[in-house]
């Protein structure tokens, strides 16, 4: 195609040659149309297969690499020591695990929360994309802020602060032996739920979530926010060692995963694994977006063999952000394949959304539930552990899925 050609072509067509030209044009057009039909059919045909594939087909394609071969085996899962004890669930389960925004508003009307034995804490993620007001700008009256990433985690180690340090933190927040700790946050209480799990881990007994979190208070109820930061008298709470009945570590999960792997990925172990990430992450079709969740990436994509996938969004009311009624939550998990006669371990990417599910299953339903807080950012980066992938291809660092 060039201008020379085009000007020549438009000159003065001679009628005699037009029959030959038409024939050539028809043949060329037919060939082109034929190729186009072939190419489109070829690419579309493939595509239909790939978009529908995905869900439950290949339970644990790549889970066979567990190391059952002959010869010596080496142990890869590290044995780091984490102090704690087993105190059961009696002190964990709470009679009324959820506070309504109405209840909180009444308490605020009544006066100082610390005089009523209540400690109100905002634990938020503060993503720039959040539509909710960050604590620094305005917050629920009398709320104190706890920065999850700094205040209850140890520096440069993937572990929480020690019990002594937790005592210090809790006392500075005004938590006493009989305090009711009310937590709320943005993003459907993800990090507030995470905090509630950590607080329970260290033996704070009366921890409740503000149902619906900041979303319900600020956007749905349109209640007041203030800038004033409260000062509260110090509390007398003494932290206990971590309650490891609430916390699962990798070796324990590995045992379950290996049992399930031997059964071709079926959930045969007497412990339920609940993966609360998105279906695409569970299936191994996608990893994490490194632009948003830097540091949460995994080298291998997929799920722990035998885990059921119930995305956390399914158990909250879309409009208010409140948890659904307990029986609805129970039936959602039952339908997904959770056997409530067995204990449950929940995991996600870093443990915070799994805490949200932990809250629903343990605190609202009263079941025995652990959070595997190492979650996919530990599992998907560990050498040698079994991984199930439903996408039908190698995914992640060694796959062809790109980023």
């Amino acid at each position: 195609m060039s201008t020379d050609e085009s000007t020549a072509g438009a000159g003065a067509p001679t009628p005699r040659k037009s029959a030959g030209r038409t024939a050539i044009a028809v043949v060329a057009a037919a060939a082109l149309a034929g190729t186009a039909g072939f190419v489109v059919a070829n690419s579309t045909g493939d595509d239909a297969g790939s978009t529908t594939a995905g869900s439950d087909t290949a339970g644990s394609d790549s889970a066979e690499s567990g190391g059952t071969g002959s010869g010596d085996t080496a142990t890869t899962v590290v044995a780091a020591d984490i102090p704690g004890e087993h105190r059961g669930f009696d002190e964990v389960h709470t009679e009324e695990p959820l506070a309504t925004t109405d209840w909180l508003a009444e308490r605020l009307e009544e006066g100082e929360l610390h005089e009523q034995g209540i400690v109100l804490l905002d634990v938020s993620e503060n993503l720039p994309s959040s539509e909710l007001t960050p604590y620094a700008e305005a917050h629920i009256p009398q709320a104190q802020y706890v920065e999850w990433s700094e205040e209850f985690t140890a520096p440069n180690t993937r572990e929480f602060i020690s019990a002594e340090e937790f005592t210090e933190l809790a006392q500075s927040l005004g938590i006493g032996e009989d305090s009711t700790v009310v937590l709320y946050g943005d993003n459907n209480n993800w990090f507030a739920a995470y905090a509630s799990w950590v607080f329970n881990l260290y033996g704070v007994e009366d921890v409740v979530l503000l149902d619906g979190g900041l979303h319900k208070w600020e956007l749905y109820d349109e209640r007041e926010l203030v800038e004033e930061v409260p000062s509260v008298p110090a509390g007398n709470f003494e932290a206990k060692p971590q309650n490891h009945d609430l916390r699962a570590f990798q070796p324990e999960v590995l045992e379950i995963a290996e049992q399930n792997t031997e059964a071709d990925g079926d959930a045969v172990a007497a412990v339920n694994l609940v993966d609360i990430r998105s279906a695409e992450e569970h299936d191994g079709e996608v990893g994490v977006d490194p632009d948003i969740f830097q540091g949460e990436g995994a080298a291998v994509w997929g799920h722990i063999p035998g885990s059921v996938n119930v995305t956390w969004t399914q158990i909250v009311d879309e409009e208010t952000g409140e948890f659904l009624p307990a029986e609805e939550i129970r039936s959602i998990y039952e339908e997904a394949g959770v056997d409530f006669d067995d204990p449950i371990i929940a995991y996600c990417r870093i443990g915070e959304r799994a805490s949200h599910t932990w809250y629903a299953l343990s605190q609202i339903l009263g079941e025995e539930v652990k959070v595997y807080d190492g979650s996919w950012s530990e599992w998907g980066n560990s050498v040698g552990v079994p991984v199930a992938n439903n996408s039908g291809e190698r995914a992640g660092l060694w796959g062809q899925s790109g980023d």
Partner: protein
Amino acid sequence: MTVQVRADRELGWTRADTVRTVIAVAVAAVLLGLAGYLSATDGEGLGGSNAALMLLIGAGLGILFERGRYCFFCVFRDLFEKRDSRGMYAILVSIGVGTIGYAVIFSTRIPTPTADNVPTDAHIAPVSLALVIAGLAFGLGMVISGGCIAGHLYRLPEGHLRSIPALAGVVLGFGLGFLSWDAMYSGFILGAPATWLAAGNGYVLAVLLQLGVLVGLGVLLLRWNPPVQGRGDRVVDAAEVRRLVFFKRWPALFTGAAVGILAILAYYKDQPLGVTQQISSMTRTGMTEAGWMDGFMPGLDERLAGCVAMVVDTITTNGWLIVGIVLASLAVALPGRRVRVEKTTAFNSLTALGGGVLLGWGAMIGLGCTIGVLLSGTQALALSGWVFGAAIVVAAGLGFRFGLHRKAAPGVF
């Protein structure tokens, strides 16, 4: 045989030219200064390290759009009304050049193209009835409002004041698009195949097919190629260069090839060309903040490729692209005496607004516009680009045939 050629009019230099040139130089300085600043600060908080590059690519597009009249409205109007297909060649060439470049980039990232590894960052969208409806609405909106979205962006500095209500309409249209998205998505788009021509066929076959189609269209369009007027013998001196650069329309083949190269650069370094992402994202952010819609949109936020709206707080590289187009178009239109305020009435502003709504709605449902879906889509070997383009051509053809552009703006054309 002597051929009578019309002598070129003396250009001369008036006081107004001095003023225009000073303004143009100032605008260009602002543009380059901005690029320098973004480059020096690495676009920190202002779109990131690609901000300066995308601003300059936008500037390049602005220059090419303005000087080459790479405007889908103008090109289709010439074709359907004046039976002049010359502008179409710029579009065909830009698709052809871009296709080859895209294929080269794809091949370094995805050696074996299959339906399972469709490049997610390229504009390869589901082919569904919704795409056809969106294309028809977009084409109609283009005829009524007097330009496509990119066209309005570069024609606004030329004094095409109808672009203001038209772009306002685009924002409204995006809003309506967001509100009707759920219905369109669940009704048509969900489950529709995002056909990528390279999948299963390899790059060679797909590229050859597309080039074949482009050549075929090129041959077909020769029927409407009017005779070329000759120009007299001339010396290439400063005056001739000034005439060629600022007054004569740049050749279609040059414009098309340059647009194709810029498209390749943009995709290679940042993201495919498109002009609606920033506008639609701002619309969406505004609506979300006002509580008119949910923060999460099924389908849109999960996996669809295109000029998709995200909730944003700041300017993105796409915003800089638009800034580049507008400023550069102004800077090159001025020295060619092409900035003229056009006749604007209440009626033709209103029709521009209405046309803009159609443009915005079509661009939202189609996940992009003539640049984002038609150009960047076809270059990426996506069937969606062709389908959207065909729908636009059909709607534009009918619109021009029935003279909708004249009815919408009496006395302008």
